[in-house]
């Protein structure tokens, strides 16, 4: 095992995939400025700076993907995706279908979001569910360096447009990463901790909050199973259902706002397929229906914290 940060894991995945496949290229605002090592190894044609224009960056990725290249584009912050929605949603997401399958769009869009940098709501807005609701695109949002590396490799190899979100708070966190060419398949959740009493489903930074809560619950004799979704679309419903059928209790935790979010989707899947196994109502812990503030205490209060996750689990067990 190697030890590396999330940011280094992303860089390693990019370099390995560019080495492996000459059609992979990366471009975006400051990409060539910041990634000099990639420019040196792969040349200026495959590592490009762009004008500050997210729409044309995403559109260029879609056009290139449809005609033989495998672009990775960095749009920096997730709220900037609003400038690129037409190219991602209307073109990359729909033109395969509308053309009767004549084209594929193997492209990856990178964007960062989430509390931790005090940048406020125009740089911090968890918009991942928008894309889950958009046909033809996949959505990935990992929580550990190993998953960042392995899932980005799979995203680059995938023949569909993939939105790959990095939680801002995780960029400089480190962890073990297997050596060598290890790709983690899209669409597979990870069971990070097993337990029989309650299931905690989450993704991105709140996975770590769930792990902390699970540790405290264990001290009180409560077995919490923690599931990291990792890929939001396609959603690994089998892993969720297997766990809920065992525990009978579910808390879904994410930083994105509640209405029509991943929590709503997971709760609906469980209601449809495992209703009779439920021993308590499904709970969601999410960010509020509000823009994220820059102020540190407000920004932290936006995110479901370990105390709240622990309390929710106890409530379901009638053990508050």
């Amino acid at each position, binding site marked *: 095992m190697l030890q590396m940060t999330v940011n280094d894991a992303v860089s390693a995945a990019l370099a390995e995939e560019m080495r492996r496949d000459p059609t992979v290229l990366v471009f975006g605002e400051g990409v060539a400025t910041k990634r000099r090592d990639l420019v040196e190894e792969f040349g200026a044609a495959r590592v490009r700076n762009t004008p500050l224009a997210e729409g044309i960056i995403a559109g*260029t990725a879609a*056009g290139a993907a449809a*005609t033989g290249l495998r672009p990775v584009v960095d749009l920096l912050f997730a709220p900037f995706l609003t400038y690129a929605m037409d190219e991602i949603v209307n073109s990359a997401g729909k033109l395969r279908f*509308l*053309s009767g399958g004549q084209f594929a*769009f193997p492209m990856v869009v990178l964007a960062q979001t989430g509390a931790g940098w005090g940048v406020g709501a125009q740089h911090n807005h968890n918009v991942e569910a928008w894309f889950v609701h958009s046909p033809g695109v*996949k959505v990935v949002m990992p929580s550990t360096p190993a998953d960042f590396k392995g899932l980005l490799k799979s995203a680059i190899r995938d023949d569909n447009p993939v939105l790959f979100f990095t939680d801002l708070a995780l960029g400089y966190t480190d962890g073990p990463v297997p050596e060598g060419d290890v790709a983690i398949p899209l669409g597979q959740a990870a069971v990070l901790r097993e337990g029989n009493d309650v299931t905690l489903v989450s993704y991105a930074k709140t996975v770590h909050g769930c792990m902390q809560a699970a540790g405290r619950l264990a001290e009180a004799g409560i077995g919490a199973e923690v599931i990291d979704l990792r890929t939001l679309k396609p959603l690994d419903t089998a892993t969720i259902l297997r766990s809920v059928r065992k525990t009978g209790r579910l808390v879904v935790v994410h930083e994105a706002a509640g209405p029509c979010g991943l929590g709503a989707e997971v709760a609906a899947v469980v209601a449809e397929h495992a209703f009779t196994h439920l021993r308590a109502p499904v709970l969601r812990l999410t960010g509020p229906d509000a823009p994220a503030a820059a102020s540190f205490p407000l920004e932290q209060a936006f995110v479901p914290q370990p105390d709240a996750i622990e309390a929710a689990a106890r409530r379901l067990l009638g053990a508050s």
Partner: protein
Amino acid sequence: MMTTTHPLVQALERMTLIRAYEETLVDLHGRGRAAGTCTSVGQEASAVGVISALSADDLILTNHRSAGHLLARGADPGRLMAEVMGRRDGYCKGKSGSLHISAKELGVVLTSTIVGGELGLAPGVALSRSMLGGEGIVVCFFGDGAACEGRFHESLNLAAVWNLPILYVCENNQWQAFVHRNETTLADGVAAQAAAYGMAGASVDGNDVEAVHTAASQAVAAVRRTRKPFLLETRTYRLRGHFEPDDQSYVDPAELARWRERDPIVLLRARLERDGVLDAEEIRAIEAQARRTMDRAVAFADASPYPGLEELTSDVYA
């Protein structure tokens, strides 16, 4: 004696075919047999003049007013008709309808109905051409309405700074959906904007197929030679409404009458008669031939089944 080797006669045949195809669609729609379409009636010289200047390995991006581009490129009218009528044998299995038809086998890639969508996609297609090798260039058709979108600026700017081999063709048909371009822009035309990006540009009478062909040939040669983009504006007019049905009650009748006199097919027929290339009977024969082609196209589409319901969710993911 009519000779089909004369390039202007070939142009007339193709333009007549496009006109017949779109009039057939209007008729089918009126009888409830096809969805409404955005026709390019009046713009046939622009499509035929530009497409006839291309090579087989050039790639084309078009938009919602695409019938002329597709037919000029050699699309099969029956498969187009089947597509518009939502049938399985259409170019896109009936999933596109009239609005987003792409035909990879013809090099017509990535048709977007979002105004300006094709401008957003063109640089990537040209980047592939550049990086994967080959002599082919990319041609991107859009309207004066799309030139009001921000993507027009973003696309031309990126193509210029990245040296992408794109011929941008702005078919300036004076209408942006239901609004005359005089209401939306003070600039006289679009071609002059090329200079702002350090790009070559030209403007041409879009209703004179020979002039369009000459200007497009020069522009294509420049793009091929320099591997840099070029902006060509074809000044034309949308003789029918934005979308069928459309009574055009918002159109100044005097302006419409002036442009009807400059109908590109009327102009070309008159010229060929005046020059003694075709007589009236031969012109009627070209029209009759186009009508017969359309009868066969409709029969082909009628005979094609609707897609199976499994197509509802196929081709969503690769």
